[in-house]
C-alpha cells in the first residue's frame, strides 16, 4: 500500500488537522508516514500545502515527486488546481467548492470549477453546507472533506473514525460526535458521487 497525498488550502484554514487524523490512523495501522508541513511566513493568508505520504514500505523522500501524487485534498478549489501539475494521470481531486477570496485577481469561480470537473477523477463538495446539514459547526468542515477522501485513502473508514475519536476526545463527547457526523456526511457524499 502506498498513497501520496497533497493537502492544500489557505493559511489558517486548518489543513493540518486533516493530516493529524490521517497520520494517527496510519500510525495505528502500522504504516510508514512522512508529512512535510509549511510553517512560518506563508501561514499568513498565503497558499499552504502539506505533502503526506503513507506506505507499507519505508518512505525515502519527505516530498512527493511530480507525477506521483495520488490524491489532492483541498479546502479551496483554486488551491486544488495549484498542484494539478503534480497529480498522477490516475490521481484524484477531492475539494471543497467554496472559494476563499483574499486576493484581488481571484479567477472566475465558475471557470475554476469547470477546470476541476475536467479532471476525470474528482469529488467536489460544499463542505460547509454538508457540515451544517449534519448538525456540525462550520469548524468541522475539514472533517467533511476528509470523509469525502476516505474511499481513496486506502485506510479503513473505521480506523479514520477511531482516530477522530482519539484526537477530539479531550474536547468532549459533543465535539467528537459532531466531527464524526461531519466525517460521515462527507463519506456518504463521496460514495454517492463516485458511484
Amino acid at each position, binding site marked *: 500500500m502506498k498513497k501520496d497525498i497533497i493537502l492544500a488550502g489557505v493559511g489558517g484554514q486548518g489543513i493540518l488537522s486533516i493530516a493529524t487524523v490521517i497520520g494517527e490512523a496510519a500510525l495505528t495501522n502500522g504504516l510508514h*508516514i512522512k508529512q512535510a508541513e509549511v510553517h512560518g511566513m506563508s501561514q*499568513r493568508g498565503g497558499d499552504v500545502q502539506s505533502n503526506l505520504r503513507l506506505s507499507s514500505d519505508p518512505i525515502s523522500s519527505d516530498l512527493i515527486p511530480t507525477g506521483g501524487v495520488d490524491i489532492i485534498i483541498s479546502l479551496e478549489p483554486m488551491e486544488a488546481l495549484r498542484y494539478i501539475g503534480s497529480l498522477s494521470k490516475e490521481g484524484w481531486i477531492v475539494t471543497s467548492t467554496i472559494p476563499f477570496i483574499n486576493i484581488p485577481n481571484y479567477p472566475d469561480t465558475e471557470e475554476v470549477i469547470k477546470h476541476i470537473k475536467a479532471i476525470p477523477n474528482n469529488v467536489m463538495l460544499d463542505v460547509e453546507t454538508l457540515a451544517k446539514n449534519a448538525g456540525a459547526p462550520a469548524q468541522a468542515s475539514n472533517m467533511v472533506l476528509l470523509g469525502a477522501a476516505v474511499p481513496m485513502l486506502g485506510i479503513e473508514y473505521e480506523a479514520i473514525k477511531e482516530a477522530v475519536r482519539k484526537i477530539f476526545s479531550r474536547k468532549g463527547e459533543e465535539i467528537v460526535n459532531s466531527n464524526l457526523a461531519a466525517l460521515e456526511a462527507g463519506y456518504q457524499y463521496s460514495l454517492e458521487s463516485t458511484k
Partner: protein
Amino acid sequence: MKDNNLFYMRRLLLGDEAIALSAIHSGISGVYAYPGTPSTEITEYIQHMQKSTPESEKVFCRWCTNEKTAMEAALGMSYMGKRALVCMKHVGMNVAADAFVNSAMTGTNGGLVVVAADDPSMHSSQNEQDSRFYGKFSFIPTFEPASQQEAYDMVRDAFEFSEKYKIPVLLRVTTRMAHSRAEVETCDQKRPQNECSFPENPRQWILLPANSKVRYNTLLQEQELFEQESANDPRNKYIPGTDKSMAIVACGIAYNYLMENYPQGSPYGILKISRYPIPDTLIEQMLSDGIKKVMVMEEGQPVAEEIMLQKISSKVEVVGRLTGELPRVGELNPDSVRKALGLEPLKAHESDDIVVSRPPALCQGCGHRDMYKALNEVAAEFENSRIFSDIGCYTLGALPPFRAIHSTVDMGASITMAKGASDAGQFPSFAVIGDSTFTHSGITGLLDCVNNNANVVIIISDNLTTGMTGGQDSAGTGRLESICAGVGVDPAHIRVVVPLPKNMEEIKQTLREEIAYNGVSVVIPRRECIQTFKRHAREKKNNK
C-alpha cells in the same frame, strides 16, 4: 543493539520535535533559543514537555533575547558541567557567531549542542546561507541527519561526543527535515542531568592570546580525531554499486531524494554523509572502487562539492551544483535529483494557468495594518520619505496594498539604517521595527541614534509578542518605554498610540509632531497581535 530493559516507543514527530525529545532524553539542563523558522518548534516542544515533568527534572527553557545571548548562556551552563542545547535558524548563526566561533576555543565542560536550521529556497528567510560553513570555519564537528530517526539518534551521540572531546557540536538541519513528520522510534529512558562541576582546565576559558595560542593548536590537532570519529559513525558509509561509471556523494536528506528515485537500490556507489569533517578514508574507499565521476548531492551551498574538488584528482570528474547538474540555488527535491540522474520524469497532469499566486498578507485586524496606513499617509506628505523596515510580520508591509517600506535586511537594521540615511541627509528617515526585533538587536542601534542625536522617527510596532514565528514571549513586553528612556531618548519624544482605525487622526498627528522634532523620536503603536488575542480568548473560554 536494543536493550530490552529500556522503554522503546514509536512516535510521529517533526524533525524539530525529534531533536527536542532526544535532547530531553540526553539529560539537558537547559535549552537556549530565539524563535526563528524553521527552528522554533524545538524549543516549543521542550517547553510543552515541561508541563508534565516533575519539578526536580525540569529544564530551563525560556526564550532568550537573541541568538548571541542564547549561545553565551548555554556556554555558561556548559562551563558549570551541565548539558545545554542552543537552537536557531541559519541567519541566527550570524548573530551568535562571535560566541559560537569562540566556543571552539574555550571548549566545553558539560555537553553543548548547537542546532542550526537552514532554510534553502528561502521559504521564510532572507537568504540561504549554509551553516556547515560555520562548522568548518570554527573547526566544530557538524552532524547532519538524513532522517527524523537519525536526528533523534544523533542528538544523543552529539552530547556524548561533546563531552568526550570537550567541544561543541553543530547539528545542521534544513526546512524539510525540521518541518516534516515521520515515525521515530524513541528510547524513553531519560539520562539524569549532570551535577555541577567546574572545567578541568580553567585557563582555556580565558581567551587571552597566550592561552588561545595553545588552545588553537590543540583544536587543530584534534581535527584528525574528529575525522576518525566521522569515519566510525555507521551513518557515514560507502555503499558500493554495480555501475562504476559514477558514484554519488549524498549529504543529509539528499540521500532520501536519491533513494526515492532508486527504490530497488542505486546502481551507483553511494557515499552517504551525515557527519563532518568528511573522512578521507571514505573518499578513498569510494575512489578505489574505480569510478570515473562523482556527483555531489547536498542541501544548501556546495560545501561537500568544494571539498571533493579539493580532495579528488582531476582525473575523476566532480559534478553537482557548481557544474549545473543540480540547480545552483534552492533546496533539492525528488525531481531535481531525478533529472540529474538522467531518469525520465513521471507522467502527470498539465499545470493549470488559471491559478494565480496567493502571497501571504498581514492578518485582518492586525495592528501593523493601522500603523502602515497612518505612516503611509503621513510619509506621502513629504517628497522623499524613506522607511527602513525590519524582520517580522510587518515586513509584509512591502506587499500590496501598503508597499510601504524601502528596506529589510537583518534583525535591527531598520534603526541603524535610518540613522545612517539621516547622517547622509535623508529627511524624513523612518525605522519600522517590531517589539521583539527591537529587543533582539535594536537597542544598541538606538543608543547610536541617541549619542548622535540622529534625526529619526523610530516606530516600534508593539504587538506584545514574537508574531511571525507563532506568538512566543517577547523580551521587552511592558518595558519598551523605560528601555528607550534608559537608553537616553527624551521621554517627551516616546509616544504611545493604539493602532485602531478610530485613532487614525491621532496617530497621524503624533507622527507629524515627531517628524517636526529634530532628534530621536520613538513612536510605539501598541495593540496585541490578533492571533495571540484569539488564542488567549479561546484559552479563557476553555478554562471556564
